């Protein structure tokens, strides 16, 4: 099966719920388990939230989300044209956050990494950030 969809929305917090629901609804074509679906929604929520609160912390802008299905694989690409990340390995460390206080936990990238099969972060200061994540659906369906 091959399919794709593309969404664009302004960086507003109320679009977080919309984006993860849309990604989940699209991924449903692969007949995922409840857990696989929850993993996708959670990872998408983290990436979209980061685009909104970090990417566009100082200005408004657009977030773009592309979802693809290639055979049994679900692929999601979330892109902002915001601030970008200076030190990607540091940003990806568990508990690392540039927002002080208790508002952010610094666990966003850790969640994306654990809930999806692959996570790729492409970012440049002043240019923006592109997050690509993949997950194979139905991995345990025919196994063991």
């Amino acid at each position, binding site marked *: 099966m091959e399919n794709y969809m593309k969404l664009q929305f302004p960086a507003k917090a109320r679009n977080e*719920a919309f984006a993860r629901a849309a990604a989940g609804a699209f991924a449903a074509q692969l007949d995922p388990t*409840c857990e696989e679906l929850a993993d996708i929604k959670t990872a998408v929520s983290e990436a979209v*939230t980061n685009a909104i609160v970090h990417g566009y912390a100082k200005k408004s802008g657009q977030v773009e989300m592309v979802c693809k299905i290639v055979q049994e694989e679900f692929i999601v690409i979330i892109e902002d044209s915001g601030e970008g990340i200076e030190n990607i390995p540091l940003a990806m460390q568990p508990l690392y956050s540039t927002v002080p206080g208790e508002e*952010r936990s610094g666990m966003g990238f850790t969640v994306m990494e654990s809930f999806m099969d692959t996570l790729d972060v492409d970012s440049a200061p002043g240019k923006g950030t592109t997050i690509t994540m993949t997950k194979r659906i139905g991995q345990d369906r025919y196994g063991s």
Partner: protein
Amino acid sequence: MTIRTEQIGTTLVVKLSGEIDQSCAGEIRSDIDRQLQLCPIKNLILDFAKVSFMDSSGIGMILGRYKQIKARNGTIMIIRAQPQVDRILELSGLKKIIDCG
């Protein structure tokens, strides 16, 4: 997201429902903190039975309340977390410091 609170003696029970993300974590935080300031509360029970989704935005919210209750020598408990929420609690290490039922 809706929040209902009920005080039983020195225990505040907070019943959350809906989805917890960055768009509402701040509101939950200030709702609970208002009660903690107004009333002589020692213990906090967070009832997650009707929470269908939580991302890492909920972790900071829980951790902040944990610190306040600790400072009062009280106990904080999370009850009835659904599988998706439970995995976030596990991954964040919150399960190691908070009784999650």
